[in-house]
């Protein structure tokens, strides 16, 4: 749907991989400043909302067991008070980021604090939380606190008005990764040819006046699917091009608000993207934007000797780290190619890959613990071990099913079973296909190891 603009110009961030010198091209610091303020404020409201909804308790305190990330099993939650203190510290750091007070320290605290919260439990994984952690990590290294910041009032000598272009380009790159991989992920038969899951989700929104009555129509689902895929694939290029940028940003706003209305439980994601996409705008745009802020002193348009350029001490190391970061960010979403069978079914290599609102999947999992030596057999009451959210997430994701099975084996050992074997009957619905078994119910999961390799006990996905 989006034609490639004929006079497409490469933006500086694409140049930087090619030309090492263009990486250092000095540009206005303004985009970084407004990004810092907008990002900080958004995180502030996002965390306050999290607190206000009581999720600190339901997500971190109530669960008796946490699904840990591989290699991060040591990350443990504190008690109720402790978790509230942690979130309070992270909230405080967002305000410091907005103010530009102790900027470096604040970004480090925010990154560590926020990432800690996300590492506690895999079932809380959300693409936009991952995005926030990445951006927070990037921001530690950026001079976004070198102007219009309390730090600069305290120490005016530190003020910079120009920064190397890569400091802005890296955020643009991160957004490009999100959009383009989200777009590529949509290029599958279910999405394009069956208009699933839009076809399932839209009829749930028929309460909306005017548009509501059309949401039962298949052609509307196709329109949403195809438009969504095209949007994700091409929006970045229209945002990079100066001529198309204003119209493209209108698309960004409308598209994300539409996703907030039409998708089930998309949370803060649309707002994160709307705010972050501002980074694509030019220095002069951000100068204008900031001129509406109190006490902001506009920079003169012509460069004078007054301009101070922020410079990194060891640019070679920075260059190396940049290339490494970019490489890793491109490879992680592609790792699914190393696994056999259908990605949506087995979900091996699914996380950290910008697969947002891509499928409708739900499951019901029934576990039985047996002991051959004593001929015992007990059905497991999942609710006794997991919260409703944990159970829901576990029921469709094989690696979490395995982790839970291991937990059950341990728990029943403590209940004086000698050699507990864990079997699971897991029924899953994917994109409207009738429910069927996800994994081999005759395999003793307690004996199956966690692995990066393909789990052979996942039943093969068959097209209907």
């Amino acid at each position, binding site marked *: 749907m*989006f034609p490639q603009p004929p006079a497409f110009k490469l933006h500086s961030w694409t140049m930087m991989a090619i030309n090492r010198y263009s990486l250092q091209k000095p540009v206005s610091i303004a985009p970084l400043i407004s990004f810092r303020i907008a990002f900080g404020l958004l995180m502030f409201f996002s965390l306050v909302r999290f607190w206000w909804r009581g*999720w600190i308790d339901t997500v971190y305190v109530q669960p008796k067991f946490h699904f840990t990330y591989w290699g991060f099993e040591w990350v443990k939650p504190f008690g109720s008070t402790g978790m509230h203190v942690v979130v309070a510290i992270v909230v405080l750091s967002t305000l410091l980021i907005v103010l530009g007070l102790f900027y470096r320290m604040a970004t480090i605290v925010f990154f560590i604090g926020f990432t800690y919260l996300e590492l506690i439990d895999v079932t809380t994984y959300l693409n936009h939380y991952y995005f926030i952690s990445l951006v927070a990590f990037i921001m530690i290294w950026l001079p976004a606190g070198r102007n219009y910041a309390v730090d600069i009032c305290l120490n005016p000598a530190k003020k910079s008005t120009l920064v190397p272009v890569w400091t802005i380009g890296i955020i643009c790159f991160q957004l490009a990764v999100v959009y383009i991989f989200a777009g590529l992920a949509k290029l599958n038969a279910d999405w394009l040819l069956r208009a699933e899951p839009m076809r399932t989700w839209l009829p749930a929104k028929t*309460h909306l006046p005017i*548009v509501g009555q059309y949401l039962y*129509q298949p052609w509307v689902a196709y329109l949403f699917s195809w438009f969504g895929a095209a949007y994700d694939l091409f929006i970045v290029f229209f945002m990079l091009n100066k001529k198309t940028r204003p119209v493209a940003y209108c698309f960004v706003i409308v598209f994300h*608000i539409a996703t907030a209305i039409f998708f089930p439980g998309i949370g803060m*994601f649309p707002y994160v993207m709307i705010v972050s996409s501002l980074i694509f705008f030019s220095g002069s745009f951000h100068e204008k934007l900031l001129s509406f802020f109190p006490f902001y002193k506009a920079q003169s348009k012509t460069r004078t000797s007054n301009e101070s350029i922020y410079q990194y001490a060891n640019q070679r190391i920075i260059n190396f780290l940049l290339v490494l970061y970019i490489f890793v960010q491109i490879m992680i979403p592609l790792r699914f190619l190393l696994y056999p069978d259908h990605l949506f079914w087995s979900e091996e290599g699914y996380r950290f890959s910008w697969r947002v609102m891509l499928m409708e999947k739900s499951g019901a999992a029934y576990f039985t613990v047996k002991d051959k030596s004593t001929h015992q057999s007990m059905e497991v009451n999942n*609710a006794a071990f997991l*919260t409703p*959210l944990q159970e829901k997430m576990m029921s469709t994701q094989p690696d979490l099913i395995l982790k839970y099975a291991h937990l059950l084996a341990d728990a029943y050992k403590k209940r004086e079973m000698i050699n507990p074997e864990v079997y699971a009957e897991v029924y899953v619905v994917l994109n409207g296909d009738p429910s069927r078994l996800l994994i081999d119910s005759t395999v003793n999961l307690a004996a199956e190891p966690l692995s990066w390799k393909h789990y052979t006990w996942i039943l093969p996905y068959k097209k209907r």
Partner: protein
Amino acid sequence: MRKKLLVPAMLIFALSGGIFCSKSGNDSNGPVTGNGFDKTAMLTYYADQLIIPGYASLLEKANNFQTLSNTFLAARTPSNQQALLEAYKQLHLQYTRIEGFNLGPAVVAALESYVNFNGGLDYSFATSGELTGFSIDSTTIENNITSGTYNLTLFVRSSFYAQGFSAVNYLFFGPNAIEKFAANTTNRVKYANDVVSRIKLLVDQINASWTSYRANFIGNTKTDVGSPIGNIINNMAYQLDVLKGPRIGWPFGKQSNNTAFPTKVEAYFAGNSAALAQENIRNLKKIFTANDSGKGLYDYLKALNKETLANQVKSQFDVVIAKLEALPDPLSKTISTEPQKVDEAYKEIQKLLTLIKTDVSSATGVQITFMDNDGD
């Protein structure tokens, strides 16, 4: 370039126009076109044909139960007790006819916890000593009677187990129920009265609330967490979970290596547990089909091009009903005398639960979770 952008731009603005209008416009529902489905008509049917008359009837039966309870407490004869038992069975059966609608005013009043507490789904049936499932807590009840000080409005497990149907079972129909009134009569009569009054009070409150709640209920055709449609489908899954767990499976010994817990069946002393389970599932089917009025979830699924699923669920309901009807009362005995039949019923309940939890929830865009969460 601008021209090439114009077409998609117009498309999205046309769409967004509708979206933004929707935000400001009133939430009325337009006429249904094509293969659409009138969700308001479905909710109206549920409210006017099943819920509101259901609570009116429940109130009537609670009143009748209170009258007969007064008679019994004044003259504690076996014949008065027998009449009271009959009234109680009618009351509890009527309760199972509305428990699939545990939403809105019933949730506000915490009806299920106070009247027919099932112990919660997150409690394991591992040891017999603990209060789990439909246990009867005679210790707390006797302590309350002896001390004469208790607060039945407390929102804690010990309070739930000391009132509602389990307390009615113990006080009126338990072993030597009549004889026990001989000692500490004033306190015991007062306690029995308080338990009965509280059931009536809660039902009264919910019945009255529906007058004003009805408009909210039928006016909200969303399917998100807390919406009427979301609640009905979640409740259907929940009721099947209760059936699979506290009602049948757990007393049968499914969690405990076939060690049965006969005293933990619903309404143990009244002895009509199987009848209650049967009435419960028959009524869930009624909710699903809306009595074949063409306005139920069954018809909604058909409108969503899920005819196969709709019929599959409907026939699975029939299978479960047949399997449960094969279980005679008292269930506390049947679970040990007819384990094969109980096991068959259990398996079929699980199949139905799976259909509701996965296929139906997916098709209707309803999330099965009692927890609101951020998502993407």
